[in-house]
């Protein structure tokens, strides 16, 4: 209320401001005061201050029928013209900025013969309500200014600065300093620092001052500092040193060098009053490139077009002016109203980074006018064709997942990144995988080229939690390419702890569900799976998948207590061969003759046998294994001719032909 006159109560302020401006998270009543906890978006650092919020309130509250007016504008009140210090320049300030890139404005002044003591009750209380510890009348002013105007400042003990010299420069990697919280740092390099000419670093700019020059009870001469810095350097230093100070969070958003002046003048006022000191140096103000106000042109019709409702132009102007913009109206009389109406909006310097184009102005109008005032309309319907491959991809993924779930499998979703150790344990070469350059953990360093690596780990992590495990994942794998993004390909991978034929049954069940039958099995050399307990899944002479037992040596590397069987299928194959149903066939209504034969399998492979049998007899409709004893299989053959009834003798003849062929 220092800045604002209003009839809105704190809870109304919370509700209304949150809807149209800064989000007020909580209101807490402490004694007679109310404390707001406010979330400020990163583009509105100008709002992260008591004054900034007051200015927002001035624009927003009237939309809700509340009175709100700024009592005064500190940016207009506190200017160098109104600086009350009349310096007796007994101290000389020697400031050099080595690289103007680093610091957009540098102001400083020495206040002498200060008396260090506790702050006034009002400053103490306001800081403490804001969760800032009150230290003394000098340091507190620095924090108070930050809260009031959103500009961090710093105070030094001037007598601790050797030769009264200050050189602002980039740090070299490995330079050492101790900040005033007692932490010692070996600097990462390229940090903005101030040294006193002897190599002693006195300030880690924008983050925290040095311990060697901090204000103590014995301080007599205070050096008062207000600057704006290059935000990129501040963020980098703050993140790499882990010094996430409040000052850093301000500076890294980029502050307005114009506001340095107000913060400086207000600060000097407060310092002189609180410490009884007097100015003892000239004012230093290095400001090589003055920040100019910029202008944005916006048509009234565009405001209406984007917001979707018509807002009276007087209201538009009032909203912008209350937010600190200057608005000049123009009209092209040749156009029908309101098409010719446009505004030339002057943007205050503290909004330079945030307001650039007409859409930014439209946003200001829209939010203060109130999003709650706008109707809800569904976007106009229009047909857009979804590419066929996308449609099939999502459809078959969904069908596969639900089928596998219904037959008792559990879906896992794993990170796309895996560890080097895991790859090596499963015989894979990490160097053939895309690698993250800034991973935060060894666990997630390489982009996987096989989902099996993750599922084997899942099995390992869940050993002992269930008697049997049957799990699957459908996800992309990432195959590196030359000078291009990796190929991203969907794969279905299943892992079970049961046995080979259980796994094969799952795979075939899925294929049946999706009506896919153009695949065969073939024995192939394979890396992950054991040679004699695995098979490749082939379609049109191309390998589209494989299934089998994880090699024993990998199982041992992973400390698996039982065998794991894995199936991997390229999802392309599934997606491209899926059909909603298989073609209709008339049911066979003629006589079906069943004949059994026991066959010695010592020299035979069942898959071959089956193939040969069907080739040998066109009356053969089905084959079923009914018994298995040692090397012998008892097989039941079903014979029928859909066009006429056959006799048992005819069937026997067919069987003999088959037995000869196999």
């Amino acid at each position, binding site marked *: 209320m220092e800045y604002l006159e209003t009839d809105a109560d704190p809870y109304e302020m*919370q*509700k209304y401001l949150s*809807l*149209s*401006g800064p*989000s007020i*998270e909580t209101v807490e009543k402490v004694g007679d005061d109310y404390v707001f906890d406010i979330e400020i*978006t990163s*583009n*509105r650092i100008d709002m992260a201050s008591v004054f900034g919020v007051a200015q927002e309130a001035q624009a927003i509250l009237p939309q809700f029928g509340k009175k709100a007016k700024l009592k005064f504008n500190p940016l207009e009140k506190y200017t160098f013209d109104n600086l009350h210090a009349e310096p007796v320049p007994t101290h000389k300030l020697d400031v050099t900025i080595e690289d103007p890139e680093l610091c957009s404005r540098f102001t400083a002044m020495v206040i002498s013969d200060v008396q260090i003591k506790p702050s006034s009750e009002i400053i103490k209380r306001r800081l403490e309500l804001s969760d800032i510890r009150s230290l003394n009348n000098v340091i507190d002013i620095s924090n108070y200014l930050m809260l009031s105007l959103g500009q961090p400042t710093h105070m030094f003990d001037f007598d601790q600065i050797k030769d009264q010299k200050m050189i602002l420069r980039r740090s070299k990697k490995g330079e050492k300093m101790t900040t005033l919280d007692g932490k010692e740092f070996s600097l990462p390099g390229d940090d903005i620092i101030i040294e006193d000419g002897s190599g002693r670093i006195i300030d880690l700019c924008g983050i925290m001052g040095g311990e060697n020059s901090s204000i103590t009870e014995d301080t007599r001469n205070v050096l008062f500092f207000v600057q704006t810095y290059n935000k990129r350097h501040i*963020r980098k230093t703050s*993140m790499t040193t882990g010094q996430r100070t409040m000052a850093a969070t301000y500076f*890294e958003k980029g502050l307005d060098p114009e506001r340095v002046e107000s913060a400086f003048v207000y600060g000097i006022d407060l310092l002189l009053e609180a410490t009884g000191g007097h100015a003892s140096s000239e004012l230093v103000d290095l400001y090589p490139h003055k920040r100019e106000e910029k202008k944005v042109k916006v048509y009234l019709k565009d405001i209406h077009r984007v917001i*979707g*409702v018509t807002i009276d132009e007087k209201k538009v102007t009032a909203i912008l002016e209350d937010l600190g913009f200057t608005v000049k109206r123009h009209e092209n009389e040749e156009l029908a109203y309101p098409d010719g109406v446009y505004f030339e909006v002057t943007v205050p310097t503290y909004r330079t980074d945030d307001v650039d*184009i007409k*859409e930014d102005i439209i*946003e200001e109008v829209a939010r203060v006018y109130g*999003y709650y005032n706008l109707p*809800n*309309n*569904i*976007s*106009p*319907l*229009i047909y*857009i*064709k*979804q*590419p066929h491959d*996308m449609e099939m*991809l999502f459809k078959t993924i*969904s069908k596969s*997942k*639900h089928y*596998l*779930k*219904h037959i*008792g499998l*559990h*879906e*896992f979703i*794993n*990170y*796309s*990144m895996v560890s080097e150790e895991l790859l090596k344990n499963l015989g894979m070469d990490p160097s053939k995988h*895309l690698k*993250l350059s*800034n991973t*935060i*953990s060894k666990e*997630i360093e390489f982009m996987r080229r096989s989902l099996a690596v993750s599922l084997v*780990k*899942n099995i390992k*992590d*869940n050993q002992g939690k269930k008697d049997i*495990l049957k*799990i699957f994942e459908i996800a992309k794998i990432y195959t590196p390419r030359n000078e291009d*993004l*990796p190929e991203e390909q969907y794969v279905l991978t299943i892992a079970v702890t049961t046995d080979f034929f259980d796994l094969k049954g799952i795979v075939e069940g899925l294929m049946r569900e999706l009506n896919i039958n153009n695949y065969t099995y073939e024995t192939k050399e394979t890396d992950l799976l054991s040679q004699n307990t695995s098979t490749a899944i082939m379609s049109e002479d191309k390998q589209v998948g494989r299934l089998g037992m994880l090699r024993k040596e990998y199982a041992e590397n992973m400390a698996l207590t039982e065998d794991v069987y894995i199936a991997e299928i390229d999802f392309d194959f599934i997606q491209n061969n899926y059909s909603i149903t298989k073609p209709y066939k008339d049911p066979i209504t003629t006589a079906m003759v069943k004949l059994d034969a026991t066959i010695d399998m010592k020299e035979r492979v069942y898959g071959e046998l089956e193939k040969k049998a069907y080739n040998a007899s066109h009356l053969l409709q089905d084959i079923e294994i009914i018994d298995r004893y040692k090397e012998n299989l008892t097989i039941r053959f079903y014979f029928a001719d859909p066009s006429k009834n056959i006799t048992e003798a005819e069937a026997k003849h067919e069987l003999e032909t088959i037995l000869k062929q196999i």
Partner: protein
Amino acid sequence: MKSAKELLQHFQKQLAAITSLNTLEELKIEYLGRNGRINQQLKNITQIDPSERREFGQELNTLKEQITQEIELKRKKLLQIESTKQTIDTTLPAKSYPKGSLHLVTYAIEEISHIFEKIGFIRMSYPEVEWEFFSFEALNMPSDHPARDDFETFFMDYEPHKEHGKMVLTPHTSSGQNREMRRLGKPPIRMINIAKTYRPNWDASHVPMFHQFEGLCVDKRINITHLKGTIDYFAKQFFGEERETRLRPFHFQFTEPSFEVDITCDICQGTGKVNGEKCRLCKQGWLELGGTGMVHPNVLKAGGIDPDEYTGWAFGFGVERVMMMKPGIGLNNMRLLYDGDIRVLEQF
């Protein structure tokens, strides 16, 4: 030859003694069968004086009807007794059928796709390993934007592309915006992109990979009311008809204006109070849903679309987040979804 009356008495005696359906069936044949007693009697009709035949026939018919009825009655009684005789302990466990599970994110993705499909949004998929250009420049995020530094985005150890910059793991689904604009060449666009996203953040409540869903609508005369209405539609479909939404001002580089969407809390029904106490889940009755806004003109330009002719809206919400906010899910830590514990995952 017995009279009808005698026959009936005899039948009733026999019937009373019957206790099983089988003997009842035998009795039925004995009397009503082709060679049963009734038919036997009928054969005797020739021995009867012609003047009495009519009456004799009627009597036999009545008898036959009565016997039929009594047998049916008895059958019903026996069946009743039979079915109460059989008892099952119905509390014994049932035969067990396999019950698998899908990841919670799968259900969310299917539901979200369906909701948007109904209003004409097509689901698409784009690279998850992407060039910086699509993840940032095309989204109006200049090279000094904090989201582009090592602390916010995963980079790949790979030679940068001459025009498109470094290779990254998509930190948001918004990289699909430019991809879709390029694919179509010009509006109209109605796209939904649900994909994996990655951020270097891994602790008790954060995971380095999660899912987002992105909506993009670009056309002539698209305005804030369309964004508001479409998001409200989604929220009501996904969370329930009784839920309300609101937009609050926010900031994102790729939208202007930008908003944060809030939805009324289901615990306190948007009142902010539960039994007179402050609701612990929400802020004054509202929960944050995610970010949205009108597509920034620079983003349209980067996609070859004239921002003076077309406008659009976009949003990007967290899939896990909205799913965990759905009433009745009861899961409140995203990490559980990715720690790979079968005992957690099998529950869904």
